[in-house]
């Protein structure tokens, strides 16, 4: 229930926490554009730049005082994607020098299938004892291919696989790039309160008002949605407990029962959220909320020296990357 990444603000006192949300958002966009502008290649320069960025991102994380474990956990949902892209790159890039002298012969055989099944069972059993699960999953995917190469007995069919150094480098490049992007974005959500974030989005979207986009309404909707996620989660937990008291067993039951159980959870939560929405609407109206009217805020944001410095640094970074592309 508690590991939903939206609004996962971790209180802290670092410079990144104190940065103006507008600047933080803008810098993030600039940095992401920069990261994506580095061309995928197996040459030394882009690889070095990507590696340097990775180190930079780690230093950045360290400077905010956010536990590294938390940041790496943010990678968990995309582990599969990471592994998948890695192996696709590895197998389909056919340029550069081959790493092995001859193509590796891979066998789909009775023994290798058996081996894979045994390994998957072992993996599922052992993964709870492993600390770095992302790396472990990666290792497991590698093992699946390794077994195919090592157990050729009683073969059914076979194929050959040749791994080129360029494939390996490109795969690694993409791997690091996705990791960089995810860590950078999660740093934003970890160090910015949802209210601040919302303010940042609102003021960055302000120019769109000229073309009649209801920016303040969108911003209000966004902030209310974010605000109500923890509330509704709390309500859901309460309802879950109440229904558990009536014998609903959310853990150990058959699929047929599960449908009824989910309904017993969904309908009350639905009813509650409507009720909450109505109460909130009334409360806002009572306090004189008018859509589109001019409002002031409690906290005024001001741009400080660190803010200017950060955005300039990000722009310089982007400029350097564009420059290096132009030269190349």
């Amino acid at each position, binding site marked *: 229930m508690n590991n939903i990444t939206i609004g996962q603000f971790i209180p802290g006192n670092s410079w990144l926490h104190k940065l103006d949300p507008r600047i933080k958002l803008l810098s993030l966009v600039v940095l992401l554009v920069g990261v994506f502008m580095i061309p995928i290649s197996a040459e030394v320069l882009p690889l070095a730049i990507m590696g340097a960025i990775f180190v930079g991102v780690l230093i950045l994380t360290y400077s905010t005082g956010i536990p590294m474990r938390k940041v790496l956990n943010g990678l968990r949902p995309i582990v599969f994607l990471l592994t998948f892209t890695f192996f696709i790159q590895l197998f389909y890039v056919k340029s550069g020098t081959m790493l092995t002298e001859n193509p590796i012969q891979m066998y789909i055989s009775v023994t290798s299938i058996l081996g894979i099944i045994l390994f998957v069972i072992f993996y599922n059993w052992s993964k709870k004892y492993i600390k770095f699960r992302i790396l472990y999953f990666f290792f497991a995917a590698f093992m699946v291919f390794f077994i195919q190469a090592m157990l050729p007995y009683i073969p059914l069919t076979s194929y050959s696989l040749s791994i080129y150094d360029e494939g390996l480098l490109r795969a690694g490049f993409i791997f690091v790039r996705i990791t960089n992007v995810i860590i950078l974005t999660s740093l934003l959500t970890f160090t910015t309160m949802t209210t601040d974030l919302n303010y940042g989005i609102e003021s960055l979207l302000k120019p769109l008002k000229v073309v009649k986009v209801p920016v303040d309404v969108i911003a209000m909707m966004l902030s209310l949605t974010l605000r109500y996620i923890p509330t509704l989660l709390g309500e859901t937990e309460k309802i879950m407990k109440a229904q*558990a008291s009536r014998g609903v067993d959310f853990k150990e039951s058959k699929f047929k029962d599960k449908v009824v159980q989910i309904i017993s959870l969904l309908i009350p939560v639905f009813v509650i959220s409507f009720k909450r929405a109505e109460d909130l609407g009334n409360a806002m109206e009572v306090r004189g909320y008018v859509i589109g009217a001019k409002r002031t805020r409690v906290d005024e944001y001001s741009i400080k020296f660190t803010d200017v410095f950060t955005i300039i640094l990000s722009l310089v970074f982007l400029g350097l990357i564009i420059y290096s592309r132009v030269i190349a």
Partner: protein
Amino acid sequence: MGIQFKDVSYAYKGLKVNYDAIGHINLTIKAKGEFIAIVGQTGSGKSTLVQHMNALLLPTSGNVVVFGQNLPPKKKEKINFLRQKVGLVFQFPEYQLFEETILKDIMFGPKNFKSTEAQAMEMAKRAASIVGIDESMYDQSPFRISGGQMRRVAVAGILAMEPEILVLDEPTRGLDPRGRRDLMKIFNDLHEKNDQTIILISHDMDLVSEYAKRVIVLKEGSIVFDGKKEALFEHPDFETFHLDLPTPLKILKHLEKEVGIPYQPKYDFDSLLDHLKEVSHE
């Protein structure tokens, strides 16, 4: 049998630190014939305590034994059956309603415990009649009745499982005085007629003094008093519990001070009235 707490502590997990909700609770509750009120300030751990009684929460240290089942359970031990033995009514239970008709909603509990459709219907009708839901209402939607009636339907949903111990977390909260009295009468009848054990969390000291026999006072997660209600109000440390005196006792103390009527504790308004009549005759 019944419920036993042996040195139970529970801590909620926080981001960096754990928050102790209750600590070192020792408690024995009999399966029959008790009427216990649990009182204490907001945040003193009352709700956390009662959620251990039907295994919604499992102790972080210590043991709870509920009808012979040890908690926390061993691996693969099923504990769902405890929810039938110990019926827990949450605050604002009307939010748990979800079925199309009132009767179906009351049947939900029994059906979860492997009763057949006919049995469940039987149990639901019995529970509905206990809380005073009329037969003509069975087919109405539970969302189209008044708040007080919704509360009754929700309570019937728990009663229909025919639990041996009934736990109520502020059952009268948000009801008008009339609804409060009616609902408490239902619980008191269950206690008196069936000798059922009832555990009640309440902030309303008038209800506590009128109905409860035994009172447990919680303060910052520990039990600071456990005994007869008569002993509670005379307790020398009563001030430190941060509890209100029930209104009848307040009136009697006031009368002793201002008019000089000798103080004699009465725990509900009816006996207070009788007592005052007697005094005025003398």
